[in-house]
């Protein structure tokens, strides 16, 4: 009770401090000799209020205070403490409060750490950021108050969706939000810089760090979500082009584009308009994602509640932000002089522009694939599904030149360059084609397409490996990232090509056998856990080489809410994962068993870690 009240009033105080901050910042902007100390203190105070509010909600969850509507809807007394805490952001209201927490945290850090920029710029960025923050405060208080009071107080809560009761999912939202919301700083800062006509090389260097921070967190957040989907959703896949996954991929693509394009701005002072547009687009896409997920338009595990009022609010808010940024862009931004930009074909700039061109195409595929079905439904009430085949058909052919350009681009120098090592580059291309051909021809599956695709990935792989030796530590971060990407594509392709699976129905004592494998269901154990009943099936799996593995997938029958989840058993090794999952066959003593051999799964995760590592190292590198 008391925690909710404190949390609620802390939110109101946070909103008030946001409004005062805007007022002071405008004052300070007009008269900007020194930065008003009040701005930093108020920003800290605002952060403190949101932290208090957030802890208020966490404590309400911990003590299972069911007079709080959010706690009642999403918690239960029998839930383990860990999931009581993480349940705080496992719902609509709490996750928005977390979003707000990150927003206020970032502007505070921005004010604290930005020393070498003008006062006008800092105050203006604060104003834009506070507009976003105040918008979210109002959204939270008006449509999604996490501290609604329930009377009479219910005895017991409704419980948290069991598939969300998972360690990876406990940290997935905070990490992802750091990425999403980090882009708000890029947005505010780009608007401020445009207004003050200071989009320049030094601004590019300054904002690059923030871009990297968002990019790293977003990458890791997506990775965690993907790992969770792999072991928890029980189908052994890790990416389904589900609208909610796409929604996180879109800002990622925009950020990655920005990350490349900002290098050109830093070096050559061109493409200013493009950098501004991308900065605006990145945060707008994050907001669009919030709108699509929170409004309940999308049908997914992430949709906690369907409430048109919320969707409408975010939509209006989104339009206000877009309108504001477009106005600023067209009113204040003047294209740099009238002399057109001259570039040499063979130069790093051209390569980065090529990258941007392709990235924008990928982004448009994902955006249109996600939004078009909703659009069609609205205008003609015809429902269509857009799934993996659509994305594969439109993305894969373009991936081939993209990978090759990704290998050659970093070989080029700024302004003008000659390809010195043409012979080696061509030789490596031939080697890649030959190796891919020899590998792919064993599988009899789409020989031509797979050969070309795998050889372009191998090409990037070989060239980046070569660069580790020839370039040593020059641009090593970039090289790590590109190398990681080649490894990711290769792992995905080989995983796709080499996976095999068995689906069968078994009861205790029965076994399944084919030429490669024998699966025996030995026995089952039933136990009662704190908030669920567990059924563990013990399997013995004999591979063709006589190796015996014991695997024990589990079914969990949760009491509150009453849902059955299946926990896959996964044996991970360096070269392949063995994946087994069971399900109940209705009214029978049979279990539906699905066993998969999934090569290179570990490499998919590792390669994503590797390319985020490139980003992390680049963030910490000293200025050269």
């Amino acid at each position, binding site marked *: 009770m008391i925690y909710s009240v404190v949390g609620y009033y802390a939110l109101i105080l946070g909103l008030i401090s946001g409004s005062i901050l805007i007022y002071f910042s405008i004052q300070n902007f007009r008269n900007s000799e020194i930065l008003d100390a009040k701005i930093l203190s108020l920003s800290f105070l605002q952060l403190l209020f949101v932290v208090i509010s957030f802890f208020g909600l966490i404590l309400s969850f911990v003590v299972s205070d069911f007079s709080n509507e959010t706690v009642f809807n999403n918690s239960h007394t029998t839930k383990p403490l860990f999931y009581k805490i993480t349940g705080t952001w496992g719902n609509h209201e709490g996750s928005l409060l977390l979003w707000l927490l990150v927003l206020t945290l970032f502007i505070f850090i921005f004010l604290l750490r930005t020393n070498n920029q003008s006062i006008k710029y800092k105050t203006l960025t604060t104003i834009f950021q506070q507009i976003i923050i105040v918008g979210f405060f109002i959204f939270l208080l008006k449509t999604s108050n996490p501290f609604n009071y329930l009377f009479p107080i219910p005895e017991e809560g409704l419980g948290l969706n069991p598939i969300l009761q998972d360690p990876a999912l406990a940290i997935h939202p905070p990490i992802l939000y750091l990425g999403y919301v980090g882009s708000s700083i890029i947005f505010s800062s780009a608007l401020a810089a445009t207004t003050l006509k200071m989009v320049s090389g030094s601004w590019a260097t300054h904002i690059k760090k923030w871009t990297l921070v968002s990019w790293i967190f977003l990458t890791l957040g997506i990775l965690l979500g993907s790992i969770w989907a792999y072991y928890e959703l029980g*189908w052994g896949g890790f990416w389904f082009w589900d609208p909610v996954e796409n929604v996180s991929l879109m800002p990622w693509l925009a950020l990655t584009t920005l990350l490349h394009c900002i290098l050109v701005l830093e070096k050559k002072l061109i493409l200013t308009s493009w950098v501004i547009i991308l900065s605006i687009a990145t945060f707008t896409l994050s907001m669009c994602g919030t709108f699509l997920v929170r409004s309940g338009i999308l049908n*997914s*595990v992430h949709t906690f509640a369907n409430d048109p009022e919320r969707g409408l609010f975010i939509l209006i808010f989104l339009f206000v932000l877009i309108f504001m940024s477009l106005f600023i862009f067209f009113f204040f931004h003047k294209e740099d002089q009238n002399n057109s930009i001259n570039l040499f074909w063979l130069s790093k700039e051209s390569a980065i522009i090529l990258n941007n061109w392709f990235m924008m195409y990928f982004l448009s595929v994902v955006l*249109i694939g996600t939004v*078009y079905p909703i659009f069609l439904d609205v205008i003609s009430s015809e429902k269509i*599904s*857009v799934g993996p085949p*659509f994305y594969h058909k439109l993305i894969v052919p373009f991936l081939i030149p993209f990978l090759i350009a990704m290998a050659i681009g970093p070989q080029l120098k700024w302004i003008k360059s000659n390809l010195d090592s043409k012979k080696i580059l061509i030789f490596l291309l031939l080697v890649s084609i030959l190796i891919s051909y020899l590998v792919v021809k064993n599988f009899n599956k789409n*020989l031509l397409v797979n050969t070309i695709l795998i050889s372009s990935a191998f090409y990037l792989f070989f060239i980046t490996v070569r660069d580790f030796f020839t370039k040593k530590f020059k641009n090593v971060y970039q090289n790590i990232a590109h190398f990681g990407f080649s490894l990711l594509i290769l792992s995905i392709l080989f995983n796709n090509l080499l996976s095999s699976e068995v689906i069968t129905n078994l009861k205790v004592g029965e076994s399944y056998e084919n030429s490669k494998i024998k699966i025996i269901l030995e026995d089952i154990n039933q136990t009662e856990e704190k908030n669920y009943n567990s059924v563990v099936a013990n399997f013995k799996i004999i591979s063709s080489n006589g190796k015996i593995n014991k695997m024990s997938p589990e079914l969990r029958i949760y009491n509150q809410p009453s849902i059955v989840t299946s926990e896959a058993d996964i044996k991970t090794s360096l070269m392949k994962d063995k994946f087994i999952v069971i*399900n109940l066959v209705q009214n029978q003593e049979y279990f539906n068993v699905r066993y998969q051999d999934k090569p290179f799964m570990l490499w998919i995760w590792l390669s994503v870690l590797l390319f985020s590592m490139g980003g992390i190292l680049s963030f910490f590198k000293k200025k050269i």
Partner: protein
Amino acid sequence: MKNLKIFLIILLIIPNLSFADNQLERNKITKNLRCLICQGQSVYDSDSDFANSMKILVDKKLEEGLSENEIYDFFKEKYGEWILYDPGLNKNTYILWLLPLLIFLLGGAIIMKKLRFKN
């Protein structure tokens, strides 16, 4: 270059073997069908009763000798286009399929217009 020639010749000689294995065919088809009672899962990925009965139905249709496309048409007629993950090209989906490609061309045009490239 010689290697490349040899490689291309080898490539052309190898015939495209087609697999008539029902299991593979079934997996391919069920991956393109939406499990209507699930949240964003294909029939192949889901183990719900609905998905399991769909799998059996697909097997039956394959045994009856229907081709992949005929099976899609069968489901489309029964459940509407919503069930297919791979929307065909028709008046409803021209924009879906062609707009990204148009954007790609447009992007290229903008780049060529705004920037001057020279050798």
